[in-house]
């Protein structure tokens, strides 16, 4: 099962290494990772997406909590949340495919952020599935390279089904 975990940590040197070392040392998997300071500059937020059964996820959360520099661990599965990641795709765009690439970009609401006579670089944000769909559609045209960020997540402000008045 894929799982996103938000880990609030002290914004200090070496903390990332403690977290990552914990995953590798205990054989846990990291699918993606994103780290940046939070509203409080003394803290950083790591969003880790990982896979594993319930027991493994339970261990991951407990082991993270055990690290002295970890302030809080939030399992996104416990709440409704929104998730985004970003991809930059450099794609072949020669005479016959230039228009096609732009059409696909338009459908996905991707942006062209760099142009050359033989390629476009597109940027797209969305959840993991949308990005994967985008790559799948572009693949036959000829992807030169792509780069993806880790997932970031945020709990929805209004939890639960919205009641209509």
């Amino acid at each position, binding site marked *: 099962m894929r799982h996103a975990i938000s880990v609030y940590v*002290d914004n200090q040197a*070496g903390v990332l*290494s*403690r977290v990552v*070392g*914990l995953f590798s*040392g205990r054989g846990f998997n990291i699918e993606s990772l994103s780290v940046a300071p939070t509203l409080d500059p003394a803290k950083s937020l790591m969003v880790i997406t990982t896979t594993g059964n319930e*027991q493994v996820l*339970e*261990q991951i959360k*407990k*082991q993270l*909590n*055990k690290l*002295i*520099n*970890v*302030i*809080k661990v939030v399992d996104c599965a416990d709440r409704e949340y929104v998730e985004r990641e970003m991809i930059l795709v450099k794609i072949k765009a020669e005479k016959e495919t230039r228009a096609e690439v732009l059409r696909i970009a338009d459908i996905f609401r991707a942006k062209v952020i760099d142009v050359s006579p033989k390629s476009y670089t597109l940027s797209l944000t969305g959840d993991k599935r949308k990005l994967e769909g985008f790559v799948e559609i572009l693949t036959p045209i000829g992807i030169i390279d792509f780069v993806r960020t880790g997932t970031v997540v945020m709990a929805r402000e209004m939890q639960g089904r919205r009641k209509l008045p």
Partner: protein
Amino acid sequence: MKKITGAQAFIEALRCEGVTHAFGYPGGAVLDIFDAIMDARDIQFILSRHEQGAVHAADGYARASGRVGVCLVTSGPGATNTVTGIATAYMDSIPIVVFTGQVPTHLIGNDAFQEADIVGITRPCTKHNYLVKDVCDLGRAIKEAFYIARTGRPGPVLVDLPKNVMNSTVNFKYPESVNLDSYCPTYKGHQGQIRRIMGVILKSRRPVIYAGGGVTLADASRELAEFARKLKLPVTTTLMGMGAFPSGDPLSLGMLGMHGTYAANMTVTNSDCLIAIGARFDDRVTGKVDEFAPKAKIIHIDIDPTSISKNVKVDLPVVGDCRMVLRGMLAELAGKDGDLAEMIAQTEPWRREIDAWKEQQPLRYCRSEIIKPQYVIEMIDEIAPDDTIVTTEVGQNQMWTAQFYKFKEPRHFLTSGGLGTMGYGFPAAIGAQAAFPGRTVIDIAGDGSIQMNIQELATVVQYNLPVKVMILNNGYLGMVRQWQALFYKKRYSHTSMAVSPDFVKLAEAYGAKGLRVTRPEDVKDAIQEALRIPGPVFVDFVVDPEEDVYPMVPAGAPINNMLLV
């Protein structure tokens, strides 16, 4: 406020922590600290002959006394030599603080002389560690290090001290409290959960307590004994839990697991309610995990939430300090005399069944013309005073000691349980002897293990620490040889210690006493003689080279599948 150097502040911090003993080895990066130590007459410094010895000594000091052990070494090789000792303490949750020197901050990362990234290296084997880059942070780092080491589930903490930090000056004031938002161990168990587990225990018909090192660490052995006796619960202990419940008690089953007693393993396998207290379901205890206590509701009391349901799915966990939770459990018995009497009556057949197992298959060995190692241990137990502290190395010597020495008190048996570190026992004995100069301290060793830290002979002679080392000399790395005999068709690949020193002459060369025993009838006299000699003694017992440790559960088999003698 007078300005003092970082090194002086360091000494001041140790004083504030009540440190009276430190073990270590000097070097370039810690010259300032060692200079300051020379003036600190209230802190006894013991110079080991290898940094590994110093960490194990600090560890032995901590296990024997319950206080935090302190170790101080230099940068680079000095620091890396501590890694095995730190990992040993980490696996067994022993509170020590290791101070390492470091190259000056402006040289860090430059591959400077005697530089090693010891904070990086020890991250996975410390509870926490620090690199102090500014002398203003020194007090806070040391305060937190001691606090983290001894609280919650204890463990080793390393503090890396760059040379320029230690010789710069500071207006020093040791912090009075720590401020760690993200670290607050749970001591008090959940009341509702304690009530629930007592309900389950009182309804059980085949209960057993499985007690581990956490009972000793929480100083909960008195509460454990009270609880077990009140409910007439049989108790088995792990290697780390030896002494947490008195071996001689009729309710005691001895150790469980790979080399556990028949009675302990059968009891656990047939139990309907396993009460794990401060134990972590190590693979040497559980054997094949799916068949461990298959019929039992599993109750687990542990201060570390990560221990719960890590290896074995737990039905009723309580996170908390073993002593506080046991007190809570005892308190739950108030007004339940009827239930208690009913339970004791209903569990009587279970205890009779267990007594039959004990009688059928007690721990035993065959006497012969050659000295049997088990006999040596029985004789040490018989002759040594009650308050003797016994350390062991790792292997057969360790298992026989756990089986045949009847430990009655916690903190009397110091052994490397989790990491299984050969070479632990001798330096650990040094630490224990430093903590308790008046008590008898005995290291039960093998001829292989003792050679791993034999250089510490110089330390015991220098400080006149009267440690007695009893070498069970079988000429082999016995435990490995035993596995080779059982599972590798007796192909003894590199387990014969074909060349060993003459331990008697070696001891004498260092200025200690050496004795050699080759006949069973001389064993008692030799032990008495060794204990009579005021200084350190090596006794070389030439024992049966082919003696094996039984019972034995083959690795990965269920624990009721035992090879008996």
